[in-house]
């Protein structure tokens, strides 16, 4: 394994050294990211060194991009990954993109409603930069252009699930079971066959009055449903054993988004109707502890600039239709996001505060940060991730409050 990684690095270095005389462009960054928990021991939350390389070239009607990257941690082996590796073919009114790629849809910031084509890497919860949260997927993407109208079709032959934190990670969600469960992973993988493909389609318009998108998808749920089987000891009527079988299910969805300006305000909206989503339920009549429901996920947002301060707010609601009181999730799950930022010193110094606020559990993630460009392309960033509350999506990480620095050289 080490040899393979070493060979990969040698190839990368060769490519970079070769770059100066050849036409492909070589860009990217080198970054150090160090975070310290604000718990009593001040444990390191992360010490990560990153080398990110974008190799791109185009010739007439064809182009390619490869984006290898390395994460290096002091206590682990080098990890060499490929975020994107695709080929483009440009026709008069049609573009084709074939290969591993990130596909981003929707108008929302930091929320995934119609932006569900590329699965998420949640190894560090939602803390990674957005280009690092999206996992590249092998797909065929075709765009047909008619003026300012775009028709987009995506075929994903092989399903990729959400990447969850490893069990030892501070970001691994703590599961609360009365007894230690037995996991059966035999059904977790989605078969490697054509019939298990995912399909997406989108129609979008960019116009003077409004930008909007209408989309549909026939996909797999990126997050597995935990099917729960309880064995009760008939003599004592107590729970004897607990079997959990993670399984991905098919989902269908239709949705859309829009963005427009009203004077100095930018208004945004995004929504999707999901069908056949499995939710965990405590209803004893259900044999596997799950209930199949449809649900709505939508957002409204507004942004403006006041006194040179950029201000953005979003309200997000997830509503389960035909709700059953014994479903573990709330019928309505409400979240706010809030972003304020201001630039100083000719846009070389930036102050920013971004927060998610969970209204159901009164929890929040507050992310202040300050960024300074020491020289062009060399960025110093210092920030904090503060989790508020005791439960909910953010409150459950209350012990993971941290401060961090990122030093980044872009080339």
């Amino acid at each position, binding site marked *: 394994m080490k040899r393979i990684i070493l060979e990969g690095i040698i190839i990368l270095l060769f490519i970079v050294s070769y770059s100066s005389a050849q036409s492909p462009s070589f860009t990217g960054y080198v970054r150090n990211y160090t975070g310290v928990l604000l718990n009593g021991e001040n444990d390191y939350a992360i010490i990560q060194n990153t080398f990110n390389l974008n190799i791109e070239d185009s010739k007439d009607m064809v182009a390619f991009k490869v984006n290898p990257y390395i994460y290096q941690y002091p206590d682990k082996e080098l990890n060499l990954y490929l975020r994107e590796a695709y080929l483009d073919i440009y026709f008069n009114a049609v573009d084709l993109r074939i290969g591993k790629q990130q596909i981003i849809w929707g108008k929302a910031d930091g929320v995934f409603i119609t932006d569900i084509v590329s699965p998420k890497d949640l190894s560090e919860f939602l803390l990674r930069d957005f280009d690092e949260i999206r996992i590249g997927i092998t797909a065929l993407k075709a765009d047909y252009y008619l003026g300012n109208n775009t028709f987009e079709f995506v075929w994903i032959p092989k399903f990729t699930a959400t990447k969850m934190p490893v069990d030892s990670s501070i970001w691994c969600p703590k599961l609360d079971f009365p007894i230690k469960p037995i996991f059966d992973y035999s059904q977790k993988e989605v078969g490697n066959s054509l019939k298990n493909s995912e399909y997406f389609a989108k129609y979008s318009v960019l116009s003077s009055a409004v930008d909007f998108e209408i989309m549909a998808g026939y996909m797999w749920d990126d997050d597995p449903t935990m099917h729960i089987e309880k064995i009760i000891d008939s003599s004592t009527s107590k729970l004897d054993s607990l079997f959990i079988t993670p399984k991905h299910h098919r989902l269908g969805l239709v949705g859309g988004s829009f963005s427009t300006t009203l004077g*100095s305000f930018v208004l945004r909206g995004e929504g999707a109707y999901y069908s056949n989503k499995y939710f965990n339920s405590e209803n004893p009549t259900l044999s596997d502890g799950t209930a199949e429901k449809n649900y709505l996920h939508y957002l409204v947002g507004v942004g403006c600039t006041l006194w040179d301060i950029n201000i953005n707010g979003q309200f997000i609601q997830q509503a389960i239709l035909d709700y059953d009181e014994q479903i573990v999730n709330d019928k309505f799950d409400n979240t706010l996001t809030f972003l304020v930022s201001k630039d100083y010193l000719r846009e070389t110094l930036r102050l920013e505060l971004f927060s998610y606020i969970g209204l159901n559990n009164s929890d929040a993630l507050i992310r202040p940060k300050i960024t300074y460009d020491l020289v062009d392309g060399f960025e110093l960033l210092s920030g904090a991730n503060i989790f508020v509350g005791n439960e909910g999506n953010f409150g459950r990480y209350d012990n993971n409050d941290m401060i961090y620095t990122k030093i980044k050289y872009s080339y």
Partner: protein
Amino acid sequence: MTTIKKIQILIVVMIVALPVYSFAQEKITGLQIIENVYNRQTGNDMQSDLTMSLTNSRGDERVREIKQFIKEFDESEKKIMFFVLPADVRNTSFMNWSYDEVDKDDDQWIYLPALKKVKRISSDSKSDYFMGSDFTYDDLGDRKPTQDNHKLLREEKVDGEDCFVVESIPKDEEYMYSRTVSWIIKDKWIGMKKEFYDEDEEHLKTLIVKKYEKIKDYWIILHSQMHNVQKDHTTDMELENVIIDSGIPDRKFTERIMKRGL
């Protein structure tokens, strides 16, 4: 026609035309001068490489490089810019559609490669500085002549060029400048110098055009410098590889090209 007859006709033409010319010279207003500058023809389309050099009071310099394309449409002007330097903003693109209709705001979008998304942004903040430079969006030519009251102050020679000197006072009292004074070259309608005064009537900035050339029958400003006299900043804006009327296709000004890049 004999030479004497030609001279007679010429004299008659001069006698008739001279008062008309003088009348036109006397009657030109500050608004007309500024409209002539705003409407100066620069071709149906133009592409160029723009370099902005930002220098602070200590002499430290930061450089931004942009590839830009501009095209006139029936009732609008469309512009698309691709950021080349610095490295951390490379492949970012910006598109602006501005309209002839007086009260219609511009439409603006930005493509951020890290987000892989084209985002609509508000064009309301014309007083914002462009990429940290000393130029606001208005300074770059977006401000419509009807937004100010213009007054012709005098005529004078600057660097050998006959100039109109025009004072412009914004109709909006909340605007970032209390007034500006422009030196406009008479026969070229180029503003070769402009002074900006802040809300307290203090001298804030001076713009000087350092180089202009006639390219394909159009006068094009190739190098201008904005000096913030209060903070002692300067921004030099230079155009290179200027190509005019090359027939840039309409599809250059679309979301497709914003995402694809250069």
